[in-house]
């Protein structure tokens, strides 16, 4: 409980935001136990956009969960903004998620009983850095920037898959995290909206000095990233 997470303030482009070294992850039990990540090392700097590409099943999502502190590695180290996280307790990892990491899941993105606006405000309410009025203003502007300004009061169930995905992107940006991890954030989107979301993420990386790491199957998007890391069978190649 003692680990204090420093605020994500004073970001300097080029600073190391995230670093992992020799990450190992096994999944499943007994006969079905699979060595999914076989010692992955990776670095992400502020202001840069990274693409992780690779065939289906190579371990991209698994890696992203580890980097997002949603899962714990069987071996290796993770550092978030210079803080070692591999051995930290749940409380410290949760705090780091709230303050430093914005996560976009590959599937199921939203809390469906809540409106788009409420979904985007959810992380801000937990962090509590802004007043309710500021939270709402920020959530509206984020939804605006993903092209959903007119649908802020729609419930999750009343949004299409692609719209849900864009709300999820807006939500990942809510607390101005220094690290944005997005698992195929453009997977369900048409060309126009893919471009919208990708441009938004790139602009944030450049303007706010955030590190953006995204998994994508779209070669065009991968090509436009600052760094592309191809992955195969649990290892970067």
């Amino acid at each position, binding site marked *: 409980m003692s680990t204090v997470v420093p605020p994500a303030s004073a970001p300097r482009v080029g600073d190391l935001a995230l670093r992992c070294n020799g990450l190992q992850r096994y999944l499943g039990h007994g006969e079905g136990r699979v060595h999914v990540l076989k010692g992955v090392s990776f670095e992400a700097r502020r202001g840069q956009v990274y693409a992780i590409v690779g065939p289906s099943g190579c371990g991209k999502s698994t890696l992203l*969960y580890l980097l997002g502190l*949603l899962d714990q590695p069987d071996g290796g180290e993770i550092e978030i903004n210079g803080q070692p996280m591999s051995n930290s307790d749940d409380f410290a990892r*949760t705090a780091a*998620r*709230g303050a430093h990491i914005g*996560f976009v899941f590959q599937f199921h993105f*939203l809390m469906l009983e809540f409106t788009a606006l409420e979904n985007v405000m*959810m992380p801000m309410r*937990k962090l509590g850095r802004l007043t309710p009025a500021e939270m709402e203003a920020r959530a509206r502007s984020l939804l605006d920037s993903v092209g959903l300004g007119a649908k802020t009061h729609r419930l999750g169930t009343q949004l299409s898959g692609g719209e849900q995905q864009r709300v999820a992107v807006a939500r990942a940006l809510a607390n101005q995290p220094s690290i944005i991890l997005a698992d195929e954030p453009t997977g369900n989107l048409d060309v126009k909206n893919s471009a919208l979301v990708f441009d938004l993420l790139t602009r944030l990386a450049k303007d706010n000095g955030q590190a953006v790491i995204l998994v994508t199957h779209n070669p065009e998007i991968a090509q436009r990233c600052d760094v592309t890391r191809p992955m195969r069978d649990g290892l970067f190649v």
Partner: protein
Amino acid sequence: MSPNLRIAFRFLTAKKRAMLMSLSCTVLGVGLFIVTQATTSGFEEFFVRTLLGTDGAMRIEDRKQSTLQSMEAAGGTGAHILQREGVKYIEGVEEPQLIKDAVRNFANVRGVSAVLRGNVQVTSPFKTEDAQIFGIKLDEHRLVSELERKITTPGGLGKFLESTSAVLMGRVLADRLQLSVNDSISVSARGETRRYHVAGIYESGSRDIDKTRIYLDLGEARSLLRRPTGATFVQISLHEPNRARQDAAHMEDVLGHSVRPWQEREKEWLSVFRALRVSSAITVTVFTLIASLAMFNTLAMIVLEKTKDIAILRSMGYERRDITQIFLWQAAIVLAIGALLGGLFGATVTWGVSMVPLPINTLFKTQTFIVSWSVWHYVQAIATAVVMVMVASLVPARRAARLEPGDIVRGTAQ
């Protein structure tokens, strides 16, 4: 509103069926608890009120006899000597005035009345019945019984006070002898017969009393029964009838007479009521357990349906304890609404039951089902619901908090 409460509220309103299920469990649990309490204690309280209103909270009878004195007494006076649990007693109270003065010093005592009792035969123009004369001083006896309120004939006690040849008779006895107010009767005791008139007819509520007791002025009773001094017993009413046992024990030490509190006097019936209470307590407990099991089940289901949301919340920085809180809030909301509705439901059913016709005319007299209205039944029911719901929700809530977000998103959470 705190974020967690807000989320809890939305989860609940979105899952209307699960919410209604757990809500109805709580409402039924609380309501049934209240109704059972109200109906079980209703008859008992009414019975106790009836018996306190007729025979008072306690009676002082029979003087305790020290061994030395008992030899003397046995040789001389011819008084009855009783033996109970190794202690010898002389029947009756020999010095009622002394006893009354001493008893009045006890703080809890409301009224004291000396009563002289004797067996008689009552004859009306119609027939003759056995009965018991209770010689009383009305101004004293008023304070230890509800005789005044139990007179059903017009004029109340007024006519009784006018003359020493006036008697008060129980309804059952009066009916058997086919008597009404102002009718004459002759009463025989120890070979002597005197004429009296009926000044009032009472209904005590207890059939046994109403078919035997005739109240008469104490002075007249002494003369009729040829007992110029002493009393059969001294009847006492208390401000706090529930303290009768302690007070009786204390008085027994101080006065040297046996003092019987109402709890001991009516032991048999009270134990019947106690058995009744135990059996309904068992019913309520079983129902409460079933209701909380259903509650547990529903909450566990809500948690299962919400695992994805848990993963999303956790990924945004919500802590384990936030997750616990969210699910406990849901239980608390259900509990609050359930307690309120359950209370109303319980009160409504209790009222409905109190309207059910149920003529009883033996131990006590009533036309309808007797219920008891006590705020404590509601407090107890809600307290039980709080404990049960919190216990039932704690396990699912903690389970929810333990889920690892990584396991949830991979679908391997269990």
